[in-house]
C-alpha cells in the first residue's frame, strides 16, 4: 500500500497532540532543572600551569628548534608522570586528604597545547578549595620530583591556581542541561505523537471510508450536542404549522 503523508496531515497531527508534546517538553525541562540545581553535586575546577624548558648553557643564547621539539616530546612523558602514583601519592600525603590514587587520577587532567611548552593541570572537585590545593600541590610536587627522576631541572611554575571568593561550578551547567532536555523532550513528544497517530487505526473521516473500505459514504452526522435539542438557537419556540410533511415550518 502506498502511503504519502502531506504537510497538512503532519500539521494536523502535531496540532492534535500539541498538549502531549508540550507537556513532555515541559516535564523534561522541569526534571533536568531539578536535577541540575538540586540533585547533582556542583563540580569546581582549578588549573595551574607550568613551563617546560631545557636548561641552556649561557653561551648558546639562541633558541634552538630542536630544543623546543625535545621539550615538547618531554611533555608527553611528563603527562604520564604527573598522573602516576609517584606524584599523586605524595600529593595525597602532603595535603592529608582521604582519597585513593585512582580517585585523584580521575579528577586530574593534564593537557598541553599542541607544540607548546606550557602544560595545564586541571583538577575538578566538588570542593573548590580542595581543587585549588590539589592543582597547586601537584605542580609543586612534580617540580620537586622531576630532578630526581629525570636528572634535569627544567620545570618552572607559570601560574598557580587561585582561590576565588565565590567560585562558580563548571558543571552541571543548568542552562545547557535544560536546553538539551528541551530538545530531547520535543523530539520524544513529536515522535510519540506520530507513533500514536500511526497506531490509531480508527476510521475518522469520510475519505478514510471511501479510500480504505471502498464503500460510499451516504452521510456524515456530527456529534450531537445539547444545543441541537433546543427548538431554536435563542430558546424561543418556533410556531409549527400542524400540517403533514414536517418541513413546512414558519
Amino acid at each position, binding site marked *: 500500500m502506498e502511503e504519502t503523508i502531506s504537510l497538512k496531515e503532519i500539521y494536523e497531527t502535531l496540532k492534535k497532540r500539541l498538549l502531549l508534546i508540550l507537556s513532555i517538553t515541559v516535564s523534561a525541562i522541569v526534571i533536568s532543572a531539578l536535577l541540575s540545581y538540586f540533585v547533582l553535586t556542583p563540580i569546581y575546577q582549578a588549573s595551574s600551569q607550568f613551563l617546560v624548558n631545557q636548561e641552556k648553557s649561557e653561551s648558546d643564547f639562541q633558541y634552538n628548534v630542536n630544543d623546543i621539539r625535545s621539550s615538547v616530546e618531554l611533555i608527553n612523558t611528563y603527562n604520564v608522570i604527573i598522573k602516576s602514583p609517584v606524584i599523586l601519592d605524595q600529593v595525597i600525603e602532603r595535603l592529608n586528604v582521604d582519597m585513593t590514587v585512582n580517585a585523584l587520577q580521575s579528577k586530574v587532567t593534564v593537557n598541553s597545547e599542541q607544540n607548546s611548552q606550557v602544560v595545564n593541570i586541571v583538577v575538578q572537585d566538588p570542593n573548590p578549595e580542595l581543587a585549588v590545593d590539589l592543582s597547586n600541590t601537584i605542580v609543586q610536587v612534580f617540580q620537586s620530583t622531576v630532578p630526581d627522576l629525570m636528572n634535569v631541572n627544567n620545570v618552572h611554575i607559570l601560574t598557580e591556581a587561585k582561590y576565588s571568593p565565590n567560585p562558580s561550578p563548571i558543571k552541571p551547567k543548568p542552562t545547557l542541561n535544560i536546553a538539551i532536555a528541551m530538545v530531547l523532550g520535543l523530539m520524544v513528544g513529536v515522535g510519540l505523537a506520530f507513533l500514536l497517530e500511526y497506531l490509531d487505526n480508527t476510521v475518522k473521516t469520510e475519505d478514510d471510508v471511501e479510500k480504505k*473500505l471502498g464503500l*460510499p459514504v*451516504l452521510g456524515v*452526522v*456530527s456529534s450531537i450536542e445539547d444545543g*441541537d435539542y433546543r427548538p431554536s*438557537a435563542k430558546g424561543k419556540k418556533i410556531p409549527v404549522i400542524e400540517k403533514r410533511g*414536517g*418541513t413546512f415550518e414558519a
Partner: protein
Amino acid sequence: MRRSRKQKKDKSSRTLVSHINKKSPISEQYRSVRTNIQFSAVDEDLQTIVVTSAGPGEGKSITSANVGVVFAQQEKKVLLVDTDLRKPTVHYTFRVENISGLTNYLIGDQSFEHIITETKVPNMDVITCGPIPPNPSEILSSKRMEQFIQTAKEHYDLIIFDTPPVLAVTDSTIVSNLCDGVLLVIRSKKTEFEAAQKAKDQLEHVNAKMLGVVLNDREQKESNYYYYYGNR
C-alpha cells in the same frame, strides 16, 4: 435543580434530534443521508433497510431512528423494527412500552397488527423487540421472519431494521440477507478499519446489498457550513 433533573430524564428521548429539532444541522445531515439512500437505489425497489455496525455502541439505534424520522417527514409510512433481540433499545428511544413485540409475532403468539406501536412522530410506527428470547439467531432465521417482512412490506413504504453489531453476533447478517439494503454505521474515531472491513466482508458474504456508510459522531468544525444555515 428541577430543570437539570428534568433534562436527565429527557435523555432517552433526546436521541430523536430530527424530530425534536427539525431545523438543527444534525437533522439536516440525516436528511442528506435520506437523499443519498434514495439516490443509491434508483431502479431498485428499496423498501427494507438494515442498519448495523461492526461493533457495539457505534450509533445504530440513533441512526435508524433518525433516518426513519426523516423519511417519515417526507410523508412515507415508515416502520422501525427492533431486531436487536439481545439488547433492545427502540422502546427507550421512542418512549413506548415493550410489552409485546417482534418476538411475539415470530413465535406465532400475536398478529402483525397487534405488535405495532404508534409513535409521536407522524407517519412512523415502531415494532419493539418484545420479550427477549433465548435463541435470537434461530428466531430471526425462521420462515416466520420472512413472512413478517412480506406483511410489513404490504403495510409500509419503508421498513428499517435496527440490528445487533455484525462482528458480535450473526443476527444482522441473517436479517440483511432478507432485506434490500444494508446501512453500515461507522463511528468516527471509534470504529477500527479492520473491524469495519470485517463487517463489510461478512455482509457481502451473505450477498447483502451494501448501500453505504453513515459516518457517525464526526468532529464538528467551525467551517461546517451546515452550522451557518442551521443556526442563523
